[in-house]
């Protein structure tokens, strides 16, 4: 485990937040974690704790206040947007600006980092697209327009697009919001299957589902950010620090939250 080549995404004393002329606004600091290859990693924390800020920093959308993000042994600054696009793909909470395209077209856009200036798809691009559609079970919907899809299907289509981008790391921001429990479970199961040879990091509010499925978890609490495998984190009592104890308490036995009556 100590071999750094096993890790695809690492942070060193990372501090995230926003730059201001009058003193920086620190959202979270001293973030240290190393995500290994083939791991499904859940990022949990209460609303406004900085999950999205962390994901944005990891995707190079915003700069860290201090510390380093290391991807495949190179710091994030050494990546151009073009080379980062071949290493890291994202699924955001926002839906595509245009819903007037078919699922096939949407997924094909994932191949953009590899296509020529006109965006012509080669045979290998087409294979990747079909594979991505198959993996997400979206092949039957290939010619469906995005506005005809249900929320769960659209989420799968967006995941297929990220898959088609063929990157060793996929980052998802709350992929299970707006979905019922069946579709939440099916999306997370899908991520679990996909994580065999990729690193998948996703933020979620489904803490109990994440505990069951994830190989590693990042738990952001107001005091400190924890990283480890879910069972260890339960033993350390990290989850009970997530929310104010007078309302919600974590039950380590069952791995779920309870409302304090």
């Amino acid at each position: 485990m100590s071999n750094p080549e096993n890790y695809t995404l690492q942070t060193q004393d990372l501090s995230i937040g926003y730059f201001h002329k009058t003193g920086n606004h620190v959202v979270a600091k001293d973030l240290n974690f190393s995500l290994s290859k083939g791991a499904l990693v859940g990022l949990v924390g209460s609303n406004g704790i900085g999950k999205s800020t962390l994901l944005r920093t990891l995707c190079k959308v915003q700069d860290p206040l201090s510390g380093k993000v290391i991807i495949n042994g190179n710091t994030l600054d050494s990546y151009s947007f073009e080379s980062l696009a071949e290493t890291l793909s994202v699924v955001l909470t926002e839906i595509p600006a245009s819903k007037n395209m078919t699922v096939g077209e949407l997924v094909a856009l994932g191949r953009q980092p590899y296509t020529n200036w006109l965006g012509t798809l080669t045979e290998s691009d087409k294979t990747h697209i079909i594979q991505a559609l198959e993996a997400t079970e979206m092949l039957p919907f290939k010619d469906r327009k995005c506005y005809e899809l249900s929320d769960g299907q659209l989420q799968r289509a967006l995941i297929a697009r990220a898959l088609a981008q063929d990157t060793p790391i996929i980052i998802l921001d709350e992929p299970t919001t707006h979905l019922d429990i069946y579709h939440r479970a099916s999306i997370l199961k899908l991520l679990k299957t996909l994580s065999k040879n990729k690193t998948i990091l996703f933020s979620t509010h489904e803490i109990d589902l994440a505990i069951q499925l994830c190989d590693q978890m990042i738990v952001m609490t107001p005091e400190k950010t924890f990283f480890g495998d879910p069972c260890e984190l339960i033993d350390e009592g990290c989850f009970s620090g997530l929310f104010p104890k007078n309302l919600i308490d974590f039950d380590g036995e069952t791995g779920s939250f309870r409302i304090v009556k």
Partner: protein
Amino acid sequence: MVGAGLSISGLLMQTLFRNPLAGPFVLGVSSGASLGVALLIMGASGIGGAFGLLLLSKWSLVIAAGLGSLLVMLAVLAVTVRVKDTMAILIIGLMFGSVTAAVVGVLAYFSPAEQLQQYIFWSFGSLGNNSWEGMVVLAVCFFLGLLLSIVTIKPLNALLLGENYAKSQGLNIGKSRLFILIATCILAGAITAFAGPIAFIGLAVPHITRQFFTTANHKILIPAVLLCGAILMLICDSIAQVPFTDYTLPINAITSLVGAPVVIWLLVRKRKLLF
């Protein structure tokens, strides 16, 4: 050529601004051209006499319109470099439009009726009475704009996902946006300068085209919009010439008469404009 150019600039705008109502008018390019012409025609009365008449040759009209749209285009581009939010650019474009319209209004108030009439005639739009030299200039601008549009096909497709996704796919947003804006300004500016501010074509044609070609891929949409725009413009122009008579109606009125019902019909049928 006029119809095709306006339609393509409309398509580019709609994708760039993620807004199905965007068109070349929105950026204020057409209003800029109007301002140039208004300043020339109505300002000429101030200079007065024979010199004024000399200024009012056809070429000076085109140059004034071109300069006007170029000015607005440069202003918009300068703002684009500083403002990162696309919605803000859209609103700024609208504001530029209102400012130029206001200046034209003030000028009109102080101008004699003769000059006013001349300006109104220009703003009706006209496809005829353009000299061959003028056509060459227009053609050069048209193909330059078209070439730029073809180069931006891939970024345009990426922008269909939204700017954040486009960025995650390694797209240089700032550069692509600049390219798209320049292409639009060249197309819309040159055409307005030569043919007057022609309404609705830029807005309506991309939507009509999307009805026939059910795709959002710009590789297919650009040539399709090009053809549709040219065809619709020809139809409008034929109507404007009023067959079997000597009358020539203002083309601007025809495009609005044809364009507005089409857009309303699409809205009623689909209940939603997609882009």
